[in-house]
């Protein structure tokens, strides 16, 4: 760390004395290189391999053989595959629809400063302390058809087997994800709600706007960026739900909760059809890329500007 402006091994821009401020002292590409190489090696290279394998037939033992569009054709004719895509979309949409209003309300509520809110918020946070696998195991035990809560409350749960029909099994998956992830989204909204300038509320009060109107006309619009971020997390998380399905329903009853990510896992590591698995994987990437691109465009993340602008 010297004061002299000489080129150094880590590739920073050379600063000639007397050069203008703009462009001087900017880091060179070498600063980003380690992260780029690391990420390329463990994410981009495998992704390219997935794309290649999706056009191959491969059982993992012999060499992969070029199979053209075979995998794609087979999967498009596969009723389980088509169903799994719909299920992925359904689970994601239900997840967003349930969690977004719930966590906005809880977050805005928790942004207040009363004492009981702090205590309740601390308890609400507890599901965050458990891993996805732990939460799934916990709920599997709590909802066990024989030993769990439903067997004690048949007036509410019928025969007590919530894993027995498609509708209830999907309900369980959506509910368990909500239970697990609402604390995270609540926190995001809580942080954002606290950052809303108080002047806006004071002005609204002077104009005689009530709590409900303040919520819809001030709080919600001010939360826009957080809603976008929170939704990206929900969508990508929803499309790739895996642990929850594996532990809670194993894709059942039958294939009624076999979402695409789980079907891909079965194709690869149960039936050793790596070509078909790669095709499903590529499909998942395409879907979530399209969604992320839309959201990134909407939110202006790619325009590299400060969030302080306009303040």
């Amino acid at each position, binding site marked *: *760390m010297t*004061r*002299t402006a000489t080129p*150094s091994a880590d590739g920073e821009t050379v600063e000639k*004395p007397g050069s203008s*401020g703009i462009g*001087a*002292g900017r*880091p*060179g*590409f070498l*600063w980003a290189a380690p*992260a*780029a190489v690391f*990420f390329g090696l*463990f*994410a981009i290279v*495998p*992704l390219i*391999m997935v794309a290649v394998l999706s056009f191959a037939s491969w059982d*993992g033992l012999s060499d992969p053989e070029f199979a053209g569009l075979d995998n794609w054709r087979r999967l498009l004719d596969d009723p389980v595959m088509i169903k799994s895509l719909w299920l992925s979309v359904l689970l994601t949409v239900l997840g967003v629809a349930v969690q977004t209003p719930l966590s906005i309300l*809880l977050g805005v*509520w928790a942004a207040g400063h009363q004492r009981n809110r702090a205590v309740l918020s*601390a*308890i*609400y946070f*507890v*599901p*965050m*302390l*458990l*891993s996805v696998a*732990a939460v799934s195991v916990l709920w*599997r*035990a*709590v909802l066990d058809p024989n*030993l769990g*809560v439903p067997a*004690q409350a048949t007036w509410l749960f019928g025969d007590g087997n919530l894993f027995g029909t498609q509708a209830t099994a999907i309900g369980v998956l959506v509910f368990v994800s909500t*239970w697990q992830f609402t604390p995270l989204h609540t926190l995001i909204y*809580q*942080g954002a709600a606290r950052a809303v300038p108080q002047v806006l509320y004071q002005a609204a009060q002077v104009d005689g706007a009530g*709590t409900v109107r303040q919520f819809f006309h001030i709080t919600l619009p001010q939360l826009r*960026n957080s809603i976008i*971020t929170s939704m*990206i997390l929900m969508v*990508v998380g929803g499309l*790739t739900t*895996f*642990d929850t399905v594996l532990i809670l329903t194993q894709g059942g009853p039958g294939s009624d909760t076999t979402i695409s990510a789980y079907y*891909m*896992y079965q194709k690869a590591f149960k039936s050793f059809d*790596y070509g078909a698995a790669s095709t499903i994987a590529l499909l*998942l990437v395409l879907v979530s*890329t399209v969604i*992320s691109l839309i959201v990134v465009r909407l939110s202006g993340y790619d325009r*590299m*500007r400060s*969030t*302080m602008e306009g303040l």
Partner: protein
Amino acid sequence: MRKSRPNYFAGFGSLVWLLVVGLPLYVMLVATFQSRPDYAANGPLSFPEHFTLDNYIDDLNSGFAQYFLNTVIVTVSVVGIVVLLVPPLAYTIVRSRGRATTTVFRLFLLGLAIPSQAVIVPMFFVISEAGLYDNLIGVILPTAAFAMPVCALILTGVMRDITPDLYEAMTMDGASSRRVFFQLVLPLSRSGVSTIVVFSALQAWNGFLFPLVLTQSAETKVITLGLYDFQTEHGVNTPGLLAAVVLSMFPILIVYLFARRALVQGLMGVGGK
């Protein structure tokens, strides 16, 4: 200030949610202090008659201590890699005007949309070829890589808020990129760095698919996988299983108790502003 009349609707709603969050936690805790026959006989909602710690002791003796250690090793390593690589990356993305940097940033944005499931097949073969199958390093490397895009995004957001004047002032003084990074950028983005620490730690802590596919022996098993195996092998031993769940949350619980502020602030940071 905002309103004086109590909000009964919010009060009622918050109590309902308390019940939803609290009920399974209650079932979990009381089950772990009962013997298996007691739990089966009394049902999940009853309070334990004969208090016992055997479930916890049995779990710790059946390998969970080792799984713990493995999870901690993975978590610490992933956080280490992310904290070492992402801040310089974010600094370059914010300050560099080069084409290559823009391309890299786009690549990481694309990375946001790559679910780790999608690459599991080639990852399995790459890690096996590299001789890292059933080795914690083989879990650490891909886990760290897949935590990077979100971390890069979070930190870039924070670093963009450092005003250009500050950079200008430092460059006028002839400061090198390295000096700007260590004396200006890092100190001013401390909140962002703690956010990526929390986020990547949670990713590693939650990791399931990579360990499931890339490891197999008890020596390399992480906690999430230990829970899954426990459920598939002794699923009927509910008290033992739930005791394992409680054990698995212990380290994070300790962090929560002693560094609640940092943890909560960190997670709030995931949402930006």
